[in-house]
Structure formats: structure tokens, C-alpha cells
């Protein structure tokens, strides 16, 4: 009797528990299913984009990340933008025309009339003056993009400070204000409210022209911000960010900042007061056309969620790594395209460094050649990237201007174990030949710590292959991965103190689409392991390449750098993975450009719409 009661009681509890759980789950699921059945068809005036990383800041003078620049390019505008898919020609945005002086030192921009910020404030040359100096005086991480050619002072008798910036009345400048802004010997000179001249030569590059200057002006660093808005919210503080500007945005662009759900999503809403609405159609270009879609929402999600949402039709554009290409191709109703290699190069071109300042044995060219020939480059590309990457010869990455001319007849480094063992034996170290012969048995090469970031599966797999390849000829490396922040701190460390890591994998990703951006970083010793082979002739060649407008001279200098580095065998150029464009098949109007940050590969959302 009592046992029976017990079972009866147990049964009741079990039923109650199960019913509660089922009710909660089923109720929610039923609601969700019914709700989703009404929302799976995308609303045709909005776009959902899904990416991985939330922007670091919404201030154009501060953000230094692809997601940040993506938002900036929709809300703020600069004087010029890349011309469609071109990386060498430009279209006017806030400027309708410009001219460059014959010596390449002065850029005069003629500004559009009737341009307004989204709050209605008019835009003019004073705003350009304010915005550029604000970026320079705030001096945040990406400031160097402008700071290499421009500065807040002329080094003699003129210096703009935060106090001066904050004191000027930009809507109705008095004579003192105009004295500052119209002074001739400074980086940014206002000629009149609709004309401004950039004088190069005050930045750290010195008194030389810079042929990639126009491209630096397409970055958010040079975007126009409204001085009235900045002054209303704390003004400019030297060396410091502005908390309000970090989380709010008022620009001249075709979109306004809508809802920001911190850590989750950012919604861009069509700017109802957009000045481009009043521009005659024949005067519009793609960079200033009014937005077609009412809203663009960018959600920051895990890769699994992004792919799930693409499959379900919830998201129309997602970002995903090249390793998922084969999976993504199978999803119906989705266009997945391998973009030209310049887009991959813009995201990251990878190389292996050998640093003799950390391990003197690496000073021996035969050792470096042995290591170079020991690596199976194509094997890495095949097994790590399913073949969707290209081997390159740096420092200019493949697809970038002057790559082909600089490389000329140089073939990417090849895999040849016999040759590798031969060079190692020649250097006097124990070398294992493919046929099993061992030379210099008693003098093994010292074991080397090998740096890479464990946050990257592709780097991890590559490091493992390199370890195996080098072991095959008799060189043992110890894999010493670091998390990305620690890795970054080592590879970008001022002074490049790499003594713990004589060898490792490094990469470069563009700040602006110009070959000189890569050459400067990789060839001129700003990176770990690259300083060891830096020499004044390479530096001079890079200065010559960036300061002339003569195409032959540019090619000649880049070619010299490429060939010199190639025959030093100091950096083993590994791979550049392809980059994917992933969109729902009814999304159209995207104009890809490697300078763009929209989903990693286009500048502006204003042209995007549905078929």
C-alpha cells in the first residue's frame, strides 16, 4: 500500500516537472516558429549584416578596426573616396574637385556647397580644418595615417593646440580665428569657406611628397566632424578620446546612427536630411548617392550563429573565413564568391620571419636558405586553406599596384628538401637528406622558439607543418604560441624585442590601400624580425617609391626592394588567403573595394539593395 502511494506520488511529481518543462519549451518554440514564419521573408527596405567583432569606437579619429571603419564610412564622409573598384583613382565626396601642385606638396580641394551634417549644421572648409587637426591633436593609434604628412605645428612659428581648436567659432569665425585657419605655412590652410589646401611636409615623413596621400584621405581619420557637436560634448583634449564621440555619431553621410545595443548590434538609419538628396542626378557618384535601403543593421555574432542566420534567411550578408568556403557554397539562395586576391591581401598577407638579433646563427645566409627551401608552401596552402590562398613574393602583397612589376621573374620560394639539407650542411650544421644521409652529425642546429598566435587556427596548423618540414632536414623548433593580444604585443613591440622568439609567423593587414603601406611596415624594420635586414638602401628606395609620381621610378624602387629582400632569404613569404563575399542571392549593388570595410570588402551601403 505504501509502496503504491510512493509510486503514485513520484509519478505526479514527474508529470508536473515534465509538463512544466514541455510547456515552457513548446510554448516558446511555437511562438518563435509562428513569429519566424512571418519574418523569414526579408523586409525589402532593410538589410541585416552579421559579423564577428563589435566596433572599438564610433569616433572617426579613434577607431582603428574594420568594424569601426565600416560604421564610420556610412555616417561620416571625407573629401574623396576610391573611384568604384579602383584603388588608384578617386571620386569627390565633400570635395567636388581638387588639384595637386606640380611638386606634389600641395593638394587644393574645392568643396561642395549646401552640404549639411545630419543635425542640419552646414559643412564648410572650417570643418575640414577642425576635423584634421582634431585627429592629429587627439593622437590616437591611427593618427599616423595623417601624421606622416601633416602636423598641428609647422615647427617654426605656428602650432595648433586643443585650446585653440576649442576656442574658435567655426560657424562665424572672427578675424583671429581666420588668422589661424588661413595661415599659409601650416598643414591645412583654409582659403575660403569652400576651398582648402593641404600642405605636405610637416609630418614625420619630412619635406617630401607622398603619392598615396589621396588614399590616406579616404580613411575615417580625415572625415568631417561637426565642431559644434564636439564642443557641445567636451571639446578636444590633447592625447585623449572623447567619451561622447566614442558612442555617438553626427556626420554628413547618407546614414545616421540608429540604435546601438552595446555588444550586440548597431543599426544605421537613412539620413532624412541627407544633402545628397538635393544633388542633381547627373552630378551624383556612387559615394554620395542617397541610400536606397532604409535601415542597415549590423549584428555581431559568433560564426556558428552567422552561418545559421544565413541559412535561415535571417541575415543577408555575413562575414566568414575562407576555411568555410566549401560549406557556404552548398547553402541554397546564397552567393558565395572568391574575391580577387587583392581583397585577401588587404586582410592579411602572411610571412615567416627569421631574426638574427635573437639568434646569431640566423645571420648565416645558408641557414636562411636551408629554412626557406625546407618549407612546403603549396602543402600549407592545400591543407590549411583547401587551396584557397596564393603564395606570394613580398613585401608588396599580390593584387596590389606594382606587385607584378616588382616581382618580375622572381618565382615564389620553392620546396626542395635536398637543397635545404645541402645548404644546412654547407653552413656546418647537422643536415638530414631525403635519402637518409646525415651530415655534420655532431653539430645540430640549436632548437628555436617559434612564435605564432594560438587564436588563429590557420597559423596553428601552418606552424605545425613548418615544425615538421624543418625537423625533416634536422632543425628542431619549439612551438611557442601566444594569445593574440600577447602575440601582438611581441610582434608590434617598439624596439621589436624578439629575443625569445627568433622565428615565427607574422602578417600585415592594410591601413589604406597602397603598396607603400606594406613596404614601409615590412621592409623598414617596424615589425619583429624585419629590423635585422633593414638597411638604408631599402629605406631610401621606399622613400623614393612613395615620393615620386613617375611610374617607372616607382616600379624601379619597389622592384629593388622586392629583389633585395628576396635574395636575403630573411622573410619567407608564406601565403595570402582569399577573401569571401557572402550575400543572399537577392542582394545586389555592392561595389567591392579593398579599401572598404563593409563586411570587409566594400565602402558604402548606400548602393546596396535587393533585386
Amino acid at each position, binding site marked *: 500500500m*505504501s509502496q503504491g*502511494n*510512493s509510486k503514485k*506520488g*513520484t509519478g505526479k*511529481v*514527474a508529470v508536473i*516537472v*515534465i509538463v*512544466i*518543462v514541455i510547456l*515552457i*519549451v513548446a510554448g*516558446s*518554440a511555437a*511562438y*518563435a*516558429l509562428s513569429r*519566424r514564419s512571418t519574418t523569414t521573408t526579408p523586409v525589402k527596405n*532593410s538589410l541585416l549584416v552579421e559579423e564577428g567583432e*563589435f566596433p*572599438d*569606437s564610433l*569616433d572617426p579619429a*579613434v577607431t582603428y578596426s574594420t568594424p569601426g571603419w565600416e560604421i564610420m564610412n556610412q555616417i561620416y564622409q571625407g573629401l574623396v573616396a576610391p573611384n568604384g573598384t579602383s584603388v588608384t583613382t578617386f571620386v569627390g565626396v565633400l570635395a567636388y574637385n581638387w588639384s595637386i601642385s606640380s611638386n606634389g606638396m600641395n593638394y587644393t580641394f574645392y568643396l561642395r556647397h549646401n552640404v549639411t551634417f545630419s543635425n542640419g549644421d552646414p559643412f564648410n572648409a572650417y570643418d575640414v580644418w577642425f576635423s584634421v587637426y582634431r585627429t592629429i591633436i587627439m593622437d*590616437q*593609434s591611427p593618427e*599616423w595615417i595623417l601624421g606622416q604628412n601633416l602636423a598641428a605645428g609647422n615647427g617654426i612659428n605656428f602650432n595648433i593646440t586643443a585650446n585653440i581648436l576649442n576656442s574658435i567659432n567655426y560657424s562665424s569665425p572672427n578675424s583671429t580665428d581666420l588668422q589661424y585657419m588661413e595661415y599659409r605655412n601650416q598643414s591645412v590652410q583654409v582659403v575660403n569657406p569652400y576651398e582648402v589646401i593641404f600642405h605636405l611636409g610637416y609630418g614625420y615623413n619630412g619635406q617630401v611628397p607622398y603619392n598615396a596621400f589621396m588614399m590616406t584621405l579616404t580613411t575615417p581619420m580625415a572625415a568631417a566632424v561637426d565642431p559644434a557637436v564636439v564642443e557641445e560634448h567636451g571639446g578636444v583634449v*590633447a*592625447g*585623449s578620446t572623447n*567619451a561622447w564621440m*566614442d*558612442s555617438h555619431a553626427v556626420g554628413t553621410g547618407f546614414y545616421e546612427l540608429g*540604435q546601438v*545595443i*552595446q*555588444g*550586440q548590434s548597431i*543599426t544605421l538609419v537613412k539620413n532624412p536630411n541627407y544633402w545628397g538628396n538635393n544633388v542633381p542626378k547627373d552630378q551624383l557618384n556612387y559615394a554620395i548617392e542617397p541610400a536606397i535601403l532604409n535601415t542597415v*543593421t549590423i*549584428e*555581431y*555574432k*559568433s560564426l*556558428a*550563429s*552567422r552561418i*545559421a*542566420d544565413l*541559412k*535561415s534567411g*535571417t541575415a543577408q550578408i555575413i562575414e566568414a573565413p575562407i576555411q568555410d568556403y566549401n560549406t557556404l557554397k552548398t547553402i541554397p539562395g546564397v552567393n558565395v564568391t572568391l574575391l580577387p586576391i587583392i581583397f585577401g591581401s588587404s586582410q592579411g598577407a602572411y610571412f615567416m620571419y627569421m631574426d638574427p638579433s635573437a639568434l646569431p646563427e640566423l645571420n648565416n645566409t645558408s641557414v636562411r636558405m636551408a629554412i626557406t627551401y625546407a618549407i612546403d608552401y603549396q602543402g600549407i596552402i592545400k591543407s590549411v586553406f583547401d587551396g584557397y590562398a596564393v603564395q606570394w613574393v613580398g613585401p608588396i602583397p599580390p593584387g596590389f599596384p606594382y606587385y607584378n612589376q616588382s616581382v618580375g621573374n622572381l618565382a615564389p620560394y620553392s620546396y626542395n628538401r635536398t637543397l635545404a639539407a645541402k645548404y644546412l650542411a654547407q653552413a656546418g650544421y647537422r643536415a638530414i637528406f631525403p635519402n637518409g644521409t646525415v651530415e655534420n652529425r655532431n653539430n645540430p642546429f640549436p632548437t628555436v622558439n617559434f612564435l605564432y598566435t594560438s*587564436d588563429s587556427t590557420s597559423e596553428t596548423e601552418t606552424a605545425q607543418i613548418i615544425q615538421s618540414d624543418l625537423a625533416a632536414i634536422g632543425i628542431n623548433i619549439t612551438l611557442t604560441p601566444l*594569445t*593574440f*593580444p600577447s602575440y*601582438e*604585443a611581441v610582434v*608590434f613591440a617598439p624596439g621589436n624585442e624578439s629575443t625569445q622568439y627568433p622565428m615565427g609567423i607574422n602578417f600585415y593587414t592594410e591601413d589604406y590601400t597602397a603598396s607603400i603601406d606594406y613596404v614601409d611596415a615590412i621592409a623598414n624594420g617596424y615589425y619583429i624580425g624585419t629590423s635585422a635586414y633593414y638597411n638604408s638602401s631599402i629605406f631610401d628606395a621606399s622613400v623614393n617609391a612613395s615620393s615620386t609620381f613617375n611610374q617607372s621610378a616607382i616600379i624601379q624602387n619597389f622592384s629593388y626592394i622586392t629583389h633585395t629582400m628576396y635574395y636575403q632569404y630573411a622573410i619567407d613569404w608564406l601565403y595570402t588567403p582569399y577573401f569571401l563575399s557572402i550575400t543572399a542571392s537577392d542582394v545586389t549593388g555592392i561595389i567591392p573595394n579593398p579599401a572598404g570595410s563593409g563586411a570587409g570588402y566594400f565602402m558604402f551601403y548606400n548602393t546596396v539593395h535587393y533585386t
Partner: protein
Amino acid sequence: MVGRRELTVFILKRILFSFFVIIGTIIIIFLISHTLSKDPAALWAGPKARPSTIAYVTKEYGLNKPLYIQLLNFFEGFFSGNFGTDPVTHQPVASEIFYYFPNTIELVITALIFIIIIGVGLGYISAVHFNSKIDNAIRLLYTSAWATPTFLASILAVLVFTSYIHAFPSGGMYTPGLTPPQRITGIFVLDSLLTGNFGDFVNGLDHLILPSITLAFLNFGIVTRISRSGILNVKWMPYVKNAKAKGVNERSINRNHILRNGLIESNTVIAVMFGWLVTGTVVVEEIFSWPGIGRFAYNAITSDDYPALIYVVIIFTILVIIANLIADIMYAILDPRIRLGGTVK
């Protein structure tokens, strides 16, 4: 009366002890964060920081002052709620934590409700059906759930319930574009209810179910196991047999003798689990794009955001200590032997 006084003394002692543990923990975290690097300002400002940013961080956190002054400033800042400015996001760290923390509480409390319902329920069923097929099945279930890595369960949940079944959103706390309710508690679904916004409430619930069930699935096993063993321990106690022999109603035996005494340990485990879940949300929140303190911590780790990370670690630590304190107090209330040093007077 004596029992109540002893309980009060016990609770006060535990609170005082916990306070000192918190202070000690803060000091340890402070020392680790301020002495590990020769130049903490350069480390905190990030690898690509300009000298001006490093100077700003040095000034903001007083890193050029003697260590004991820094410690005093740190305590002053901590207790006044001024955690400084985040060098990565450029927002006040305190306001960031104030924003993200309620979102995590929402997730954790919901998960805890699922854990209690499923964990205690299955533990009871398992105990009642001791050594039967049902018992074995439940043991297999909770052991498997317990052994499943968090990232795996989360990714599978996303794939199954959003990619194939389309039952739930793949992530986020609510649908972008929705006008959120006025912030009262910071807990979205609760604020929706308090402001009478049923649409927001349902939307929030829709987003909440999958991550919270996943979190619950990964953690209900310990509650089931403890509940099961607690009930089994009590089930065969002489006083239960005695009650049965006296002819006490079966329901009364179950409720007053078996469940009440058998679930003492479960209660304390659930309290401890609260702190455990909060710290365990890092992976779940990242995969479900839940804007909580766990995701904030994850981003702080991946972006080298030391100032934010320091306070997140302190908050996590304090929560674990408080959860343990609550567990101790609950245990003392439910089992007087604890507060009396293991003997019953």
C-alpha cells in the same frame, strides 16, 4: 532563543570573514595587475598605443605613483564606483559593468530556474526509482550533460535550434529595431513586464530561452546528482522508516521527511551554482552573442583590455564569495549542526 542568537552570530562571523576575503582578493588582483609588467601603462594601453595614450593611461590610473598610493586610490575608486575609463572602448568601466551585468543576471537566473526544475525533479525521480532503468537513464543523461564542453553544447544548440529547426533566434538579447523598455532594473524581460510592454517581454523571452536552456543543460547534472544522493540518504533513515511504521501518510513523509531533509545539500549547491554560472557565462554569452558580463570579459581578454578585465575578475570573485556565503548561511539555517560546530546540543 539560543539557536537564533547562535545563528545571528554565525551569520555575522561569516559576513565578516567574507568581507576580509573580498578585501584580500582585491589586493591580490591589484598586485598581480600592477606588478606583473614593468610598464603596466604600456600594457594596459594596448600594443598599438601612441605615447600620448600611454601617458593618458598612466595619468588616469595613477600608475606613476608609489604602489601603496596606487592601492589606496584603487580602493577609493572601487568603493566610490569610479573604476576609471576603459582604454579600449573609452567608456567608464563602471557604466560598462552596470550595463552588462544585469543582462548576465537575467540569463543566469533563468538558467537557474531551469536547473532547479530539471535538476531537482530528475534527482527525485532518479532516487525514487533507485537502480531501475529510469535511474540509469537519468544518471547517463546528467553525466553526459555535465561532461559536454560548453562551446560544443552551445554551437550544437545554435545549429540545431536556429539553423535546422528555426525555433529560436541565433543570438542577441532582443531583436534590433525593437524599442527597449525604460531601464528600471536593467533586466530586459523584467523591465518589459514592469513597464507593461508585453511585446518586448515575449521578444526578450524568445531570445532568452535557448542560451539559458543551454547553460542549464550543462549544469543541471550536479543538482540532479546531489538531490538524488541526498534523497537516497534520507530515504533509508530510521526516522523515515519510523514514520512509515506509524502509518504517516506517504505524501507527508515525502514532503516533510524525505524532500525537506534530502534537499538540504541541493539548496546550498544551487546557491553556490549562482556564482559558478555567472563566471561560466563567458563561452555561452560569446556564442549566443548575449551582451552580458561574460561576453564583455571575453572581449576584454581578446582586446588586451586590462582595466576592464581587472574589475570583471573582481566582480566575478565577489559574486562567488557572496554565493558561498549565502550557501553557508542557508546550510546553517537548514542544518543547525553546521553553526554549532558539528554537534547538536
